Structure formats: C-alpha cells, structure tokens
C-alpha cells in the first residue's frame, strides 16, 4: 500500500493505492491523525485494488471523526471490487462515495 497526500492547507486529498487490509490498515490509520484540521478530506481510491473489514474500520472511524468536527469526507474513483464491499456492508449509504 502507498499513501500520497496533497493539501492546499484547507482541504486534503489522500490517495491510497494497493491493498487496504489487516496488515496495511494501521499504516493508513497513523497517517490520518490530524484530519479534523482540514475542512474537507477526499480519499482518492483510483489505484486501490482491495479493501477488507480492517480498511472499512479505518474509514468508518475517519467518517465519525469528521462528522463530529463538522467537516466533510468523500471517497472518489473506487473500482468495482471496492464498491462491491461498500455495497455489501451498507457503507455506500453512510459514506459519501462519488
């Protein structure tokens, strides 16, 4: 998994590529400790091949934190495999997926 962050100081886009699984999710988690300091967070999943429940946990926790801080979180460019997992788990309804 690779993580790339781009920010203008106000908004941040975090691109995640590869696999978001049990082994790599803690790395993403430690990379999003300051997300509430931005008005908006976008996860760009264009090159994300795979997500498991461990990745979903990180996303749900990020969504909860952004909601609490009254900030926005959205997810863009998911492939079908990742979308399927969001659909099965009802995440399509609780996350903003564009």
């Amino acid at each position, binding site marked *: 998994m690779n993580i790339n962050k781009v920010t203008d100081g106000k908004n941040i886009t975090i691109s995640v590529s590869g696999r978001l699984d*049990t082994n790599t999710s803690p790395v993403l988690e430690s990379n999003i400790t300051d997300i509430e300091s931005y008005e908006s967070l976008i996860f760009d999943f264009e090159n994300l091949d795979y997500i498991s429940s461990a990745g979903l946990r990180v996303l749900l926790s990020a969504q909860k934190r952004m909601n609490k801080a009254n900030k926005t979180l959205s997810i863009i460019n998911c492939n079908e495999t990742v979308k399927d997992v969001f659909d099965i788990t009802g995440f399509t309804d*609780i996350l903003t997926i564009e």
Partner: protein
Amino acid sequence: MYGKAEQFDDMTMLEVLYKKRKVDKEIKEEEVFNADVNELPKVREFIEHELEKCDCSMKVVSQINLAVEEVFVNIAKHAYGEKNGDCKVKIYFNGENTLEVTFEDSGLPFNPLTRGNPDTALSADEREIGGLGIYIIKEIMDDVQYMNEDGKNILVIKKYI
C-alpha cells in the same frame, strides 16, 4: 425476437460448457500456517496460486481472497488468546463448479457464525466500528459451515463458480 434471444442463450451455454471442460482438473492442496496476522500474505499467496489453476473470474478471486482474509484474521486474533497456534488451510476445487476453502484450528471452541449481523441501516455515527468481517464472509460466499470435531474448529467456506 424471442427466437434470437434463445439462440443467444444457447451460445452462452455452449461457451459455459466449453469453459468447464477446459478446467476439469480437481485441485486439493493444504498448508499449515501460524495463526498470526503477519502470516496473511503467505496465506494469500497459497490461495492465489491455487486459484490461478482453476480459471475463475477476477470477481471470484477477489471474493475468495477477501473471505480468506476475514476468516484467517478472525482465527489469528481470537482462536488461541495470547498463545501461539496453527491454522491449517485447505483448498478444494471439484474441477467443475465448486470452490471450497477449509480452516482448521485447535483453539478455543468458537462458532463465529453465531455472531449477530451488524445493522447496516444505521448512520455512520450509530454504526459500531468492527464486527464486519464475519458478515462479509456470509454475504460473499455461497455457503459457510462451522463444525467442531476432535477438539478442532473447522470452518468451510464455499463458492459456486
């Protein structure tokens, strides 16, 4: 119009039959891993290597991979408590249409299928973090069975391809 549709179905059926004939080799392999989340890449490698032989779709490959991760991680985290232990992973393909992955551990007797499903209709704030792994397995596999035999937890996941 109706006749045309029927013909198309016949052609599709022929393609399916042809495809099945091409991959009529039975696969039966097993490997023993430490029940440790750090072993996950090895488990995945083993499963992916075997799946390559049975010519299944990318979608099936990624569903099996996902279910395998969820089951294995569950065993690695809970079966043996703080102690070390093994998890045997067996893959079986009947050469036709059924893929089966079996996980055996000698940890505490535990049937993960008794765990209640998460309420997927709740909002993000109401949803609990976690508890999704078992639910995902049940949703993406066609059949999931738990047995306790000779002091072993045995979980079998099946996919009809």
